[in-house]
């Protein structure tokens, strides 16, 4: 038979065990960002352009008839250049390299920026062919971020290039 002291000991120890588990299962609470902060997630995944070269007539002449494509396109994709400005100041600049052993995969970036909630001027420029100067894709907008709001900067050629949501 259990002695009363042992019973009390067991109740205390089981109780401590339950309290420990019960407490740390939800507490202390965790706050990832302060109240007045919003988040911008920059996430882009895109295939860079291929830098094709026009074959000269002499070159084409030397090729078998059925292979005479006017353009010589390498497998490699171009790097992608991206610049983000916030309220007129540079926030982030990067050059994304294509993935894959043959550098023929997508170039990607994923980055999160915490910023004070409120009105901001956001401007994003992107070039998917570094051989050509300038940024063919540009998106500028005034944004209003509510506290804890997550805004995404993404790119989709079918949706007209860069977009915010």
């Amino acid at each position, binding site marked *: 038979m259990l002695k009363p002291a042992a019973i009390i000991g*067991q109740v205390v120890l089981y109780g401590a065990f*339950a309290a420990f588990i019960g407490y740390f299962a*939800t507490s202390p609470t965790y706050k990832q960002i302060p109240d007045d902060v919003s988040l911008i997630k920059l996430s882009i995944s895109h295939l860079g352009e291929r830098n094709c070269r026009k074959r000269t007539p002499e070159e084409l002449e030397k090729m078998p008839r059925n292979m005479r494509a006017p353009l010589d396109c390498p497998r490699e994709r171009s790097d992608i250049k991206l610049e983000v400005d916030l309220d007129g100041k540079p926030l982030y600049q990067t050059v994304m390299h294509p993935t894959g052993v043959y550098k023929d995969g*997508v170039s990607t970036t994923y980055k999160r920026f915490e910023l004070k909630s409120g009105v901001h001027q956001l401007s994003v420029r992107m070039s998917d062919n570094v051989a050509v100067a300038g940024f063919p894709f540009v998106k500028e907008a005034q944004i209003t971020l509510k506290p804890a709001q997550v805004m995404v900067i993404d790119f989709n050629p079918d949706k007209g290039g860069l977009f915010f949501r």
Partner: protein
Amino acid sequence: MRNTAQTLFQRSEEAFDTAFDGQHNPLRHLGALGLYLLWLIVASGLYLYTVLDTGINQVYTSINHLSVEQWYLGGILRSVHRYASDAFILVMMLHLLREWAYGRYTGFRFYSWLTGIPLIWLVFASGIGGYWIVWDQLAQFSATATTELLDWLPIFSEPSARNFLTPESISDRFFTLIVFIHLGIPILLILGLWAHVHRIASVDYLPSRRLMTGTFITLLLLSLIKPALSDAPANLAQLPAELRIDWFILFLHPLTDLTSPAVIWWSLFASTALLCALPFLHKHTPAPVAVVDGANCNGCRRCLADCPYAAITMEVHPTRHGFKIAVVDPDLCAGCGICAGACPSSTPFRSQETLVTGIDMPQQPVNALRQQLEGALAALQGTPRIIVFGCDHGASVASLASPNTAAISLMCTGILPPSFVEYALRTGADGVLVTGCRSGGCEFRLGDHWTTERLTRQREPQLRGTVPADQIELVWASANDGATLAAALTEFKTRIGTQIGTQMALTNRLQPYQRRTPHHA
């Protein structure tokens, strides 16, 4: 540091012994408690699975429904599932720490140690995935944080965190995948556990019924007092506010925020590598292993039944037709001697000048033990004459020796063949006290257990029925229990002392025995 940890564990276990006996002491049965919690998790999880709807809009409501509408069954099972998982992680980490603290990672134990390490990864992978299924704000937080962490590794061509950019990026398929992973990993875990205990015999698969009941009632009460509930539904367009985070399972996320993915991954890899290297870093001189003597082995299998490390197999006897012989695998043998205590050939009543038994330990052969016992008995003076058999790992017996008391320390109490107790009583001792580590505290897992069963006639080789029980005392005392043991011995001596000369003792007394060997007196 390890010594401090070991002392800490020993003291806590001994403190727990006062509330739970060793047999029901959770700290002494952490592995078994872990397995029990795993079965609770599996059983409650299977119920949750039957009511789960993996549709993107249904997954949250189908789980929430349990807690709200069906709190008396589904809600409780959900809470049990969660708290048993937290308890499992706690118990697993304590089990790891305890094995480390006792230095149980080197030598023949390297296998159990190494096979334990991948289990930790599986447990956390499954636990984290489990939180995603609820698809509340905590799930959203964990999914985003985990994928951001994973993306530091060069494994995906496209960042996996892109899957959680906007509410539209999630599909029904996602939850099917998560459930698949959350169910698949535990299956791997169970296979891994099977491997983990593969080199151990008489595995402690389940804790005592009392411990299981106590643990279950505790989890049940906790589930009623503080049911597991969902947060607000996930909304990827919004960062979750204050999160009620499960620190047992999700602690990596705040830690990543505090440091960086690089720091986290390197710490994880480094600690895993360190755990894996531990058995090899420590210089370990292996104990001599058990040696079988063909002429004295009749293939009775008792050593096989008692070996705690499954180191013995039976093969065809090379010289005795129709008999089997015990064969020791030196890689598995712990060198504990429990087999020598099990062998019927280990009886000291045999007349051979040199006692050779079926299976013996080079470091403490049965013959040397008989010589030591005979020498000690011859030297005893006065009454009552007491023989104490102790264990090198338990309370030290050396200091108990006195003119009328001889102390013999064994490498493990389990090496003591019960016939030695009878032999001592028939060749001059008035009482025999056997001591060893407390229940559940045996260095070689089963020494105390088998010794108790052999001496109380529940297990072969048994103490013979004619041996009066009142001339024997069993005292289980850890290395810290010197005082308890000394007190028990004093009490035993008093009891034996008053018994001597009474009528009952006279009729009960065993026939004196004289070994028929040429004595060189």
